[in-house]
Structures are given as structure tokens and as C-alpha cells.
């Protein structure tokens, strides 16, 4: 089954490159996404971890990330049916093909049980997302792609060095870097090399996760990519990077280095939140605004993981909430871009009056992103705050709340104007961007975020408990 999940998008992607007609390619995309999603959720009933061989297997955190990736990918696939209309055939072919390859490599990230394989999979996600980001070949998108490539490749090179350090740390004891073996032989690794390894791995994977100060590729790539791709970058790719940070935490935890690891994670997290506030304030490009909000939320996730205990539960829950919220936010920006043909927040006025559905979803995205009650993000942010207070990190809790409040105000200033201010020219605009295939996925994502704010299904709760149990004790 796991092998099927890995091969399915790979084969479908290959098929998309050769299929001559656009309709067929769309069918391949949708059916592959549906089958992948069904396959992933069939694992929810089976006992974990499932392993295929030494290298591939699915444990609780892997399944969690993979489920989020698969579900969001399905939504984006439906959205794309309405999004693309008149781009040339060749670029449609490349786009759909690489989109499916991207899914295949993200599946591989979730299923890797070996650090070397994990790194290769992360590198592959970088490479397969390049044609997606550089889809509209403008000067700005080339610049964004260049930054994305160079910064992520350096990150990967440093992470590779970190893995070599890890391998040195195992010489004379474990002699391998399979995640399971590293965890089951605690306290034997050579500590100085392990510490170096943790530092370099965190820098490398933190780059991909968008933690300040290695985040600089993120706002550019998110704002220049087509909106559905931004949704995937923010909702899926960042989570895959977080999964690799979680793997490092597992090794650090087993070796008793968790305090050391936390002392790096928490400052990175709070810096991400602070910097996101500075750049959200008065941001002119609404996609950049949501991109900086991704930096903020990844910071929150890092803080939760660093705090440990119930914070880990909160961190994983926040990862899920953030993925769907950001999927929602970026798909709404896709609608907005098709309606107003501008990325400047100043050009978008009176959305609620002109495009009531998009307007409502824009407000929902704004409220969910800023973590207001009724939305899932509120619960997870509250749990992380609780973890900070439990651990007597009062200064951290103060800044955490301060930045959350400031970012809420910064976002409100921009989004409310977009939604409510009267439009300058009152002539009727075309109603494109409100076709059913572009509204239904958004509606579904809104429902997920709202439901997670009210009720956490027991099966999800069980999975989250199982994940946080891996770092307990």
C-alpha cells in the first residue's frame, strides 16, 4: 500500500508529461489525487508504525503530515480545474507533471526512515517545485526562483554536512543512521559530534521551514508563484520541512539533548514571529502578507516543539491548522488575483460588495490566520501558550501574546480595507473567479478549519497523542 502511494503520483506525473490532451491530464491529476488521498486515509485504521523495508515506513508523525499533504493537494487539484484557462499547452503539461512529482517526493519525505533518504527527498521537493514557482516567467518570478534555489540548496548542503556529523557520532556504536536504530540506542552516540550535527541539521531544515533568519526565500517564492502553488508550498512543503525538524528532535530527545535543541528552537521561533510582524505591518502585496504570516506560524510551531510536553501536541495540531488555513488563504488570493488582476492590496477594494463569496472567505481566512476563537488555530495557539505558562516561561509567553496581538492588528488594517472600503470605479467587473470549482475547495477548507476549532475527532486526538508520546519522558 505504501509502495502504491509512492509510485502512484510518480506514474501519474510521467503520464501527464506525455498525454496529448488537457482534459486527460486534468482527469489524471484528479484521479491520482483522489486515489492518493483514499490510500493515505486507509492507514488511519491500521496500527502504526507500518514498515515496508528498512528505508521506508510510516509512523504517526509521518502519517499525520502525509494526511495533511494529501488532503490539501486534493483540494488544490480541484481548484486548478477552474484556475487554468488559457495558458499554452506545453506549460500546462509541465505544470501538471511537476505538480504530481512534487506530491510523490513529499510522500517520500513522510515515509523516509533513513536520514540520507530523507534529505534526498527534501532536495527532490525543492527541485520539482522550481518549475511550479517559475511558471509565469516574469523578471520577478525568476528572481524569486533564483533565491529559492540558492538558499534552499545551501540549506541542503549544510544539512548534508549535519548528516555526515551524525554518521561520525555513530562510529563505534550504532554504525548507521536509520532513524529507528538511532532512537533505540540512546546514550551511546558521541555527544560533541551529535551537537554539531543537530546544529547543522536544524539550520538546513530550518531554511526549508522558513525560520528567521533563513527565511528570505519564502516571501518571494510565495508571492511570485501561482496562488495554488503558494497554497501547496505553505501548506505542504513547510510541513514536510517541519517533519524533518521533528525527526531531529526525536534523535536529540533519545540522546538527552532536548534542552540543547529547545534552546535553539525557541529563539528561532520567537524571532520568526517578531520579524513577521515587522513585515506584515503596512505590507502592500497581499500574497506577501500571507507569506510572512506563514513565517509567523512556523515560528509558533517551532516554539511549541521547543517547549516540549503538551507544547508538542499543540505544535502538531497547529501544523495541521496552519496548513489548511494557509491553503484557504492562498486559494482566496488566487480568486482575488483573477478578479482584480493585481497583487497590490491597494488595488483591491470592496470585495464584499463585488464578489460576496470571495469576500466572506477572505474574512474567514483573515480570522483563521490571526487565530480567533471558533477557528482551529485558536485552540492550538492556546495550547502552546498553556505549555509556555506551565514551563514558567513568562517572558516568552508575554512576547508570544504581544506578537500575536500586533500581527492581528497589522492584518486587520490591510484585510478589512480590502474587504469593505468602497471601490473607486463602480462599473461592474466580470465575475470570473467565482466558478464552482474555485469556490467549493475554499468552502471545504473553511469547514475543516472551523470544525477543528470546535471539535477534535478522537481518532485525530489519538494520533496526536501517539506523536507527542514519541518525545515524552
Amino acid at each position, binding site marked *: 500500500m505504501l509502495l502504491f502511494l509512492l509510485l502512484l503520483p510518480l506514474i501519474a506525473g510521467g503520464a501527464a508529461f506525455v498525454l496529448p490532451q488537457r482534459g486527460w491530464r486534468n482527469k489524471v491529476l484528479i484521479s491520482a489525487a483522489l486515489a492518493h488521498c483514499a490510500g493515505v486515509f486507509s492507514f488511519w485504521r491500521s496500527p502504526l508504525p507500518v514498515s515496508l523495508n528498512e528505508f521506508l515506513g510510516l509512523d504517526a508523525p509521518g502519517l499525520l503530515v502525509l494526511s495533511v499533504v494529501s488532503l490539501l493537494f486534493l483540494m488544490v487539484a480541484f481548484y486548478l480545474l477552474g484556475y487554468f484557462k488559457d495558458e499554452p499547452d506545453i506549460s500546462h503539461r509541465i505544470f501538471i507533471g511537476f505538480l504530481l512529482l512534487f506530491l510523490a517526493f513529499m510522500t517520500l519525505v513522510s515515509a523516509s526512515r533513513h536520514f*540520507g*533518504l530523507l*534529505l*534526498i527527498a527534501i*532536495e527532490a521537493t525543492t*527541485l520539482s517545485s*522550481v518549475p511550479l514557482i*517559475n511558471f509565469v*516567467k*516574469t*523578471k*520577478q518570478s*525568476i*528572481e*524569486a*526562483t*533564483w*533565491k529559492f*534555489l*540558492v538558499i534552499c*540548496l*545551501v540549506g*541542503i*548542503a549544510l544539512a*548534508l*554536512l549535519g*548528516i*555526515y556529523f551524525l*554518521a*561520525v557520532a555513530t*562510529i*563505534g556504536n550504532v*554504525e*548507521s*543512521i536509520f532513524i529507528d536504530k538511532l532512537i533505540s540506542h540512546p546514550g551511546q552516540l*558521541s555527544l*560533541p*559530534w551529535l551537537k*554539531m550535527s543537530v546544529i547543522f541539521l536544524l539550520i538546513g531544515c530550518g531554511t526549508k521551514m522558513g525560520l528567521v533568519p533563513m527565511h528570505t526565500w519564502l*516571501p*518571494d517564492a510565495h*508571492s*511570485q508563484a501561482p496562488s495554488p502553488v503558494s497554497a501547496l508550498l505553505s501548506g505542504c512543503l513547510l510541513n514536510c520541512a517541519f517533519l524533518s525538524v521533528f525527526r531531529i528532535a526525536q534523535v536529540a530527545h533519545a540522546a538527552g539533548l532536548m534542552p540543547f535543541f529547545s534552546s535553539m528552537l525557541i529563539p528561532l521561533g520567537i524571532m520568526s514571529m517578531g520579524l513577521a510582524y515587522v*513585515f506584515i505591518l503596512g*505590507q502592500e502585496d497581499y500574497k*506577501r502578507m500571507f507569506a510572512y504570516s506563514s513565517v509567523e506560524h512556523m515560528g509558533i510551531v517551532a516554539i511549541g516543539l521547543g517547549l516540549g510536553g503538551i507544547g508538542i501536541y499543540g505544535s502538531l495540531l497547529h501544523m495541521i491548522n496552519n496548513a489548511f488555513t494557509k491553503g484557504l488563504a492562498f486559494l482566496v488570493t488566487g480568486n482575488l488575483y483573477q478578479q482584480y488582476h493585481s497583487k497590490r492590496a491597494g488595488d483591491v477594494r470592496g470585495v464584499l460588495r463585488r464578489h460576496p463569496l470571495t469576500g466572506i472567505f477572505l474574512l474567514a481566512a483573515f480570522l483563521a490566520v490571526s487565530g480567533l476563537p471558533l477557528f482551529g488555530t485558536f485552540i492550538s495557539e492556546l495550547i502552546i501558550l498553556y505549555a509556555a505558562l506551565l514551563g514558567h516561561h513568562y517572558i516568552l509567553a508575554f512576547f508570544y501574546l504581544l506578537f500575536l496581538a500586533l500581527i492581528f492588528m497589522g492584518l486587520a488594517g490591510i484585510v478589512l480595507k480590502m474587504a469593505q472600503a468602497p471601490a473607486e470605479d463602480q462599473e461592474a467587473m466580470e465575475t470570473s473567479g467565482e466558478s464552482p470549482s474555485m469556490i467549493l475547495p475554499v468552502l471545504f477548507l473553511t469547514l475543516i478549519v472551523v470544525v477543528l476549532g470546535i471539535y477534535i475527532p478522537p481518532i485525530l486526538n489519538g494520533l496526536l497523542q501517539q506523536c507527542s508520546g514519541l518525545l515524552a519522558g
Partner: protein
Amino acid sequence: MNVWLDAALVLIILLALFITVSNRLGTMIHLFGLQSCLLGCVPFFIYFKQMEFYIAFVAGAAIVLRGLAMPSFLYWAIRHVSSRSESNPTIGFGTTLLLSGAAIVGSFLLATRLVFPVRIASDMVVPCSFSLIIIGFLLLTGRVKAIAQVVGYLVLENGVFLFAMLLLKKMPLLVEMGILLDLFIAALVLGIVVNNINDEFDHTDTLELTTLKD
């Protein structure tokens, strides 16, 4: 063989320093190619007495891919570029050289603190690899030409590769994975993007890539 190994390592570092002070893209690529060929010889020196087929294979692949294919590929990428010299880097040539010197000293200090768990052929391998990584990073951040940045990245990768050579006997699979991860795909994509930069901007100055900022 230790003498040969140390000599090769010293040459590798010297070549990295030459790259930092050369302002012509062609020279940088040449020097990088030479450095990679030397690097490809390092496994022969380290594992002289215990030579095995896969070690020779890794070394040969490094010489062919990094020493020959990559430089010619980079040459191909700059075939249409009109200005082939780095005129105003963000970190000056002198400063880069000075910082590189400091990086080498720092790497040797750091390496004395980290004891390698098994006996290795030469104590210079670890500090040399750290130095290459830092010098590569300096080049990457201090140059504005896209190709110069790529060379910086490749020097950094060479540093990582040099460290990996120590693990070749213990964990061949991991090292081979690292090589698989390696440059070739990365450089291919980098090359495509560089070409795109060429087409859109008529040059490969990343300084001009400044429309996106806050």
C-alpha cells in the same frame, strides 16, 4: 602517502584562496575544475593501502563530474554573457581573502576540539573541509554575478564532499547517497535558471534582481 595527502589538501585550500581573489568568471571556473580534480585524488591518498573498487569509482566520478563535466557546463552557461568579470562584489576581494584566512585559522581551532572517533589518515582533512565550506559561503554571499555565486556554492559542496571522504569506508552507502544528491541535478537546474536570467535581463548580475523586497 601522508605527505601526498597533505600536499593535495594544501593545494586545494590555496586554489580556494585563488578563486576568492580572481575576478574573471572563466578563471574562477578553471580553478574550480582544478580543485575538483585534486579533490577526486584525495580518496586514493587516504585509502592507498586498502583500495577497493567502489572507492576508485567514487573518486573517478568526482573527477569526471566535478572536475570536467561541471566546469564545461558552466562555460556553456556563460557562452552568451558579455561581461565576464566580477567588477563590484558586495564583499571586496581583499576583505574576502582576509576573512578566508580567518576562516582557515578558525577551522583548525575547531577541529582540535572535535576528536574523530577513529584514526584517520591526516589531521588536516577535517579543518580543510571546514575551511572550504566557509570560503564557499563567503563567495556565495559576497559576489553578485550568478555564475560566481554558483562557483561559491560548488566550493562549499567540495568542502562537504571532502568531509564525506572520511566516511567512505565506514558508510559507503551514505556517501554514495550524498553524491546522488549531488550537484549534477542541482547545477542543471541552476544552469536553466541562469539561462532564464540571461534571457530576461541580458546579463547575469544578481544585483539587478532587486525588484522583490520590503
